[in-house]
């Protein structure tokens, strides 16, 4: 049996001190425990951070919102400030997983969700005789390339990994330009959301900018853009409990019929929460028309790379972007 240490940290300093090589912080456990059961994660120890005072949602001096890493997805989604001022985030959270999972899953944990690639989740992936998985064991190949990859990414892929980033919450946070606060052995620092998740490139095993032993403490949302509206739309095979085939988060302000501010992020199609500067550039200053939305969607997917079974995602994502732009720009 794979035995592991377990400590329940009572303060952030203690949590950081308790962290050892190959340990993991555990909060809601909805990803980590699942992967431990599958034999994908084999930590030497768990540092339980659930007692840390990181479960508050508080206004910041600059008019934004500071979200503790332990705030549960449900609590964040139903928070009245989030619902009113960051609707895209509430909608994204409520479109994810199931109520039971959302009650457990935390803000920090959601940032660190692992991919849902069937091969990555195979117990023997990356082992001799098992499926190739560069994320599990670099250099062993990628079984998804020619395998079951209908749900895999078309943006940000590399020849080493095409797994889709599964989070809905992160797509909204990308569009909101959130900032991730972390604390580690070398102190505190902040990471811009766009820099937090890493593209697979040649190192698909590195998924984010956290250094060893660094703990996510808060996610900060900037002050809402004056006059902007936002929306999240998720498209999938069934109405609930399924990861996105394509999703979009939009924050936009239209004045006099023209787009004066816009942020577009895509989910379900990228190897990380996919902020589309291309779509934004195509829209800025343009009239808020269907034709311009379509042009923005085309721009967002221009560099899509498809495999045998996931080509449909390109068109689906475009339709998703167009509809979400409409939702965020109409009264």
């Amino acid at each position: 049996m794979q035995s592991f240490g377990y400590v329940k940290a009572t303060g952030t300093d203690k949590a950081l001190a308790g962290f050892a090589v190959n340990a993991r912080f555990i909060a809601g456990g909805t990803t980590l425990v699942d992967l431990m059961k599958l034999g994908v994660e084999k930590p030497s120890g768990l540092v339980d951070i659930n007692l840390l005072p990181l479960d508050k949602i508080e206004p910041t001096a600059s008019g934004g919102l500071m979200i503790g890493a332990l705030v549960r997805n449900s609590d964040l989604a139903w928070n009245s400030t989030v619902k009113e001022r960051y609707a895209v985030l509430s909608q994204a959270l409520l479109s994810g997983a199931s109520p039971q999972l959302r009650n457990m899953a935390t803000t920090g944990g959601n940032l660190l969700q692992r991919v849902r690639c069937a091969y990555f989740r195979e117990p023997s992936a990356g082992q001799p005789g098992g499926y190739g998985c560069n994320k599990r064991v670099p250099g062993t190949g990628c079984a998804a390339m020619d395998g079951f990859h209908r749900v895999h990414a078309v943006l940000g892929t590399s020849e080493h990994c095409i797994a889709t980033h599964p989070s809905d919450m992160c797509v909204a946070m990308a569009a909101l330009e959130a900032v991730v606060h972390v604390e580690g052995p070398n102190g505190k620092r902040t990471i811009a959301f766009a820099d937090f998740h890493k593209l697979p490139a040649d190192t698909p095993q590195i998924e984010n900018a956290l250094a060893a032993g660094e703990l996510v403490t808060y996610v900060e949302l900037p002050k809402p853009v004056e006059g902007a509206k936002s929306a999240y739309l998720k498209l999938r095979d069934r109405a609930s409990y399924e990861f996105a085939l394509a999703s979009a988060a939009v924050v936009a302000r239209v004045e006099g019929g023209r787009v004066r501010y816009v942020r577009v992020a895509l989910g379900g199609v990228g190897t990380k929460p996919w902020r589309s500067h291309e779509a934004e550039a195509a829209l800025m200053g343009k009239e808020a028309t269907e034709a311009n939305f379509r042009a923005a969607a085309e721009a967002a997917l221009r560099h899509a790379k498809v495999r045998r079974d996931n080509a449909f995602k390109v068109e689906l994502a475009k339709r998703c972007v167009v509809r979400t732009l409409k939702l965020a720009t109409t009264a």
Partner: protein
Amino acid sequence: MDMTVAPDLGIGSSIVGKATSRIDGPMKTTGAAEYAADFHFPGMVHAVPVTATIASGRIVKLDSSVAEKMPGVLLVLDHGNVGKLYRTVPGDQNATNSEVRAPLEDEIVRHWGQYVAVVVANTLEQATEAAAAVKVEYEALPANVKASLADYDGKRKSVSKRGDPDKAFEAAPVKVDQTYITPVETHSPIELHASVVVWDGDRVTMFETSQGVVNHRVVMAQVLGLPVENVRVVTRFLGSGFGGKLFPWPHAALAAVAAKKLDKPVKLSVDRRMMFASVGYRPRTEQRVKLGATKDGKLLAVRHDYLNNTSILDDYDEGCGEATPYLYSVANLEVTSGLVKRNMGAPMYMRGPGAVPGLYATEAAMNELAGELGMDPVKLRFLNDTDKDESAGGIPFSSRHYRECLETGAQKFGWERRTPGIGSMRRDGKILGWGMAGASWVALRLPCTAAVEFCDTGRVCVRCATQDIGTGTYTVFAQVAHEKTGVPLDRIDVFLGDSSLPDGPTSGGSMVTGSVLNAIARGAENAIKKLQELAAETEGTPLNGAKVETIAFTNGRLHAKDGAAGSGTSFSDLLKAAKLARISAEGKTLATWEDPKSKGFSLHSYGAQFVEVEWEPEIARLRVSRVVSVIDGGRIINPKAATNQIAGAVVMGVGMGLMEETIYDERTGQPINGSMADYLMATCADAPEIDVTFLNYPDPVMGEYGARGVGEIGLAGIASAITAAVHHATGVRVRELPVRIEDLLESKVV
């Protein structure tokens, strides 16, 4: 759903036919109901299978030396030390097994996930870890798990034939000739398969997830080489099976061998990943349907040639032609079947086997024919309705109200408001698609025995070795016992799911209700007769000395026929006076095929399914929004449970139409979407508005209660009604299930 719940049930009220809440409901909601894996015994240990990681080949070396030394490990079973396990007698109707091969019989691997060893340890965690440490070396051969059945060898079996369908098709002025495909679907009940085995000397008790404890016992006796009386099989509650738990799977015998060798109770619970590889699935079907018709829509020719995949050793025929030969009137018809071997586990009956995939194809073809004719699809079915079973020499149907199903469904759905143009119907900015299909399912009365017992405590017990697989069997049996005895429901105990009870049928084919109710009724009558005799004989009781034929039995009381119902004595007082604990009698049901009164009839249930889909082309989102299901299933004993069956089947049909497909990795043969997150089924959020109607005509041939059972028929026709609705909304004709977003992106409707 409209539902009238029976009011508080007074003594003597007849509740057969009334919506009745489940008598086992409180046990389930409080956790008191014990499912197979809930059984624990002192000293119980845990078995975990080691499964093949190739789909074809041979085990060259199986090294369990590391595993055996791991903490808590007690035993590693493999081909070398499993000992004698036998096959079941071919063709033995009382011992139907899921797989031909006995577990660990040889060292050949024929499908991914095949059990190659079993590790037993003190805890589940120890056994799991040790199972992963068993090293197996294989000599792998190329495996074939290809979805397409194009490599079929050309051998066909004619299932049903009349006239000259090929000639008639050639000459027909209007034709449809299409191939329809259904993918592999995995049963996926919420309760995992499990066996808990306890030996007492050479007698064994097996707590099983079984839809048929009597058959399971006979199979286990044969496989383990035991006299049948030494085996007892118990399934008190089942977290559903959908057919996947009809017959034993290899894990049961392996758990029994391990328990015997260790002389300890053993639990083996099949995990979800294994459930996708080793306990059956509905095979892929490829069905070519040819329909020839006159310009007026009268069928001239039907040809239905289907293929399904099967495993290497098992010749499983899905039986897609089940409903084809009798549903419509046509002079020229042939149904043929063909099998294609795959390196996959054995297929197994899944809700509405044969008829459900078969009717998907034939009813989809009927809808296409209606399109060719420019005719309303309901009218096309009226036109080809029949009043005799033309496949069986024109014998009459016992009770057939197919036309009324169609009429009632059309009326409830509002079908006359349908405009046939593609994308022509709109509501709230969404495009509506309306489609329909017919449904049918076989009915049979299986031979069985039930016992009814009166106790001095005032309680009545019903006993039968059949099962409640989550459908409400406990409750309908209690309803009939109540009707016959007048004893209120809360004083009726129903005992099922134990092979030591009087022989009852396997819970399959929607046949338990229609079969067992007759036996219970006869058992109650026979037991009441004994009470009447006892009343006449027992000194010091009010009816002592009376002639038996003058004694009536009303609401649990024995009284003079010409006296008031409240006079005389209660049966419990009578038993006490006679110093008897209980008095019991059996009743039997005669099989329909043995009963002269039913022999000459074609017995089937019928239905009509009407489906509305909503289509948003802007975001390629399609959802089933409304279903009207009208069922002619004989008399409905418990409308609440029956409605639940049909509504559940409708939701399953949404999954079949739009989501379900087991996908095999062609390189390894592994079902690669084998988890509840990745194998998509309809969720509660996908459930449409469902309107269930029962015509409620008793089937006189089925016996006193006229019930035919409603477990399967609700699923029949749903997928073809969905694909018709999808075509109506989107213009896309999907002939390979499930309908996917990829297909719908082709739609030109805006």
